[in-house]
């Protein structure tokens, strides 16, 4: 009798333990990210016109072997996907006009690699690396290459 009681208690405990751990999958719609922190590494400003920046974004994506899914100049939006063996990345970039000669770029990306679930990229270094590639492309463009 005592053993049965103990067993019941244990299974109840295990049940509570696991449901406590489990995240409601609907929570992924809002995703608990700190918007100010996220913005700090997803945004970069450029002293170029929107058109120049937007064109450079597309050529950077091509340099990195991305395929463009969507592009709209009016809103300055580009969405692109890259697939390599065992990994994929999808990103959206928005070039927004700040003034006549300055443009703000915001980029957000999702990545899945090594059989893991796709998830938002929260590593600032990844964003930094992309902006470095974009800097290079803008430089090349200004040199006419």
């Amino acid at each position, binding site marked *: 009798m005592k053993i049965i009681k103990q067993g019941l208690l244990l299974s109840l405990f295990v049940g509570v333990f696991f449901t406590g751990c489990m995240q409601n999958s609907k929570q992924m719609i809002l995703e608990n990210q700190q918007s100010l922190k996220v913005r700090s590494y997803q945004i970069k400003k450029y002293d170029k016109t929107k058109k120049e920046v*937007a*064109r450079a974004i*597309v*050529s950077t994506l*091509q*340099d*990195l*072997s991305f*395929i*463009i*899914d*969507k*592009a*709209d*100049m*009016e809103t300055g939006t*580009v969405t692109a996907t*890259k*697939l*390599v*063996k*065992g*990994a994929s*990345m999808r990103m959206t970039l928005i070039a927004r006009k700040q003034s006549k000669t300055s443009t703000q770029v915001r980029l957000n*990306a999702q*990545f899945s*690699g*090594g059989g893991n679930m796709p998830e938002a*990229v929260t*590593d600032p*270094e*990844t964003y930094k*690396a*992309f902006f*470095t*590639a974009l800097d*290079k492309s803008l430089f090349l463009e200004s040199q*006419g290459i």
Partner: protein
Amino acid sequence: MIKILQTILLLGLVFILSGCNQTSIQMVKLKTTSLNERQLQTKSYDTTNESEILSSSVATLQDMGFNIDEINRDFGVITCSKTRDAREVGQQVGLFFLALFAGANVMDSADHTQNIRATVVVTPKEKLNKKTDVRLTVMRVLRNHKGMVTGVENIKDKSIYQQFFDKLSKSVFLEENKV
């Protein structure tokens, strides 16, 4: 002695496994070859009529059997795709003999269909040299007969790009002459 061997083996294994795994930062880092690839994928045309080049590009892609997924005139971007047969005689024969010795399951690793996606970007270089640049990038996803992905590849063959630009040059000529 055995312990040292074991350590080396373990280290080797870790090395191999970590080498395989792609990280998000690797996806957005430029390779040293990317400037070369850019040149390979780009061709300049002696015209400032961006619109005409864009229309010719669409026509060429249609000639090649692509369906247009996305097009934006202001950006000069065209994205298109098609799904085709990916079976190659060499691979099929090789796998047939492997199946004879290793069992029937190896046929799952045979490529069956391929989904080809391409982006064309038309960039006017009016200020610079009164030319218009066209850049093509192509990738393909290979699947087996069950629809599972067996491979992903960014196309880097020079001849594929050359042939596309040959076709495009013809298309530009046809468009100019309203054929």
